[in-house]
């Protein structure tokens, strides 16, 4: 999709007035922002929402999906014990 928005940008440069170009740029920036937000939301949202298949999003960021943990939680609190 990012290649597509760049392509749209190139097309607009060839055919539109400056004001229209500025407007289109703002709209595509807004659309991109929304697209980015939705993509990021889908990636680590609970799998019930349809993304994060096999908890791939959580595994990628290093989140171990468990209902309970015991200390030490990380390196530094482990080291301090």
């Amino acid at each position, binding site marked *: 999709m990012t290649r597509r928005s760049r392509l749209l940008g190139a097309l607009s440069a060839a055919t539109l007035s400056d004001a229209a170009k500025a407007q289109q740029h703002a709209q595509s920036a807004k659309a991109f922002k929304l697209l980015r937000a939705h993509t*990021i939301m889908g990636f*680590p*949202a609970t799998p019930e929402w349809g993304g994060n298949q096999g908890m791939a999003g959580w595994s990628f960021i290093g*989140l171990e999906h468990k209902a309970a943990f015991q*200390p030490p939680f*990380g390196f*530094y609190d482990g080291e301090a014990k």
Partner: protein
Amino acid sequence: MIRYKPSDVVDFVVIGSGAAGGVVAKELSTAGFSVVVLEQGPYVREKDFTHDEFGVVSRHAISNDPKLQPGTFRAKASEPAKVEQRYIYGRLVGGGSVHFTANYWRFHPDDFRERSIFGGIPGSSFADWPVSYDELEPYYTKAEWDLGISGLAGANPFEGPRSKPYPLPPLPVKSSGVLFERAAKKLGLHPFPAPMAVLSQPYRGRGACVHCGWCESFGCEMRAKSSTLASVIPMAEKTGRCEIRSGAYVRRIQSDDAGRVTGAVYFDSARREVFQRSRAVVLSANGVESARLLLMSASKRFPNGLANSSGMVGKNFMWDLGGQVSGLFDHPLNEYKSVQVSRVIHDYYAADPKRGFYGGAGIDARFNWYPITFGLDGLPTDAPKWGADYKKMLGHYFTHTFSTLAHVTSLPVETNMVDLDPSVKDAWGLPVPRITFQLHPDDVKNASWIEQRQKEIMEAAGATQIWSCYPPDDLGVSAHLMGTMRMGNDPARSVVNRFNRAHDVPNLFIVDGSSLVTSARQQPTATIQALAYRAAEAAANAAKKGDL
């Protein structure tokens, strides 16, 4: 649970079941009074709480939904207000006490007399409180023991005297706490274990925290977070005198020609109007909603809104102001586990005139990001926003980052206010709250000064990269709704008296964040609840003497 009929004249109607309303309901019902609590949100049981970030954080499962209940915002009265979500509250039985971070700081003795200590501030309605820390201390203690607070008495050298230690020891320190504590000590500061409204050990039939990590913004399925839902509301119900009526969205507090309140009119879940009669009303709907409700309850006797002869209803709204400085570390911290906060400093809490401005902060070490919010906004501001480099950073930073959050002062300013929007309506056809808010110049100076202190701490902690996310460029969404019905001795300058009783209406108490005179250093829940215990005692005593 007992069910009252709307035609029954109960002793008290309590509007809102959150941090304050839950406490008041328990205190009044155990003192022998009949109580109906009207809560607009649903009665969600612990087994129904989830770890679903998209549902809870993005889609407002347990908080106010701006699609149904929008609000409007403007910086100045001369500007048109736009529909923007600027405030959040818990919309379920237990209110914000269900989803809060659970930081449970007592205000300092000087918070209550800071105007006298520091002096007046141009452009601010800064004032002393009509109560002192010493008067409030027994009620802080009562709250800590009734609700279940974990902490270490005496560890915060800046705290006022306390009559009892915490009922429970502190929660385990996290990697953020270890790094923060080392850094703070290196700088000569005084870190202490965070006082938290989360059980470190089983307490009064409730289980201890299992460190799942889904704490701030979420409801606790273990009943380990000491919300009013988990702690005092079951006690209230057990008396057989208190009904928690959920799905009851109050639209008006009714008053008579004698200037007394007679009950509350609400929409039930089928949107039918119901009038619940009562001898007295306690309004605990939060600093925005309580102000809105008083303004919506205008009558012939109270043309400017109920309890508003002073014109001060809605004025002096204070913002939930805070700024975050984050750092990256070499080894994994796994901050997504356990409660958000484990260490705090109050070294910069007191205001110092030598700095050239008023202000101060409490700073905690925390990680209040979840996978989605971190993916959206957690990385350094100059990091790539998409693509392979973004993804690579996300994979590394989520487990290797912690933040310090400074909870900073928000000065009371009379023109910062909540009133009724003249045109925008909610899904029930009621006028929505309009917020007018601008930071006082000292708030801005203080925030930038504190940001530098946070950076020093992150440097001393050995962060390999440091970045900040700070107002005033973006005020964000306020969760601490303070100051709109200020407490005071002068009925011309305040809305409630020193026992949270409305100056104008003898049988109306207003008990929530609205009565706070100053913002202290945020984290208002302990003080709201201490005031709630005190106000409930005053209401019960007045009722018993026939003086209500």
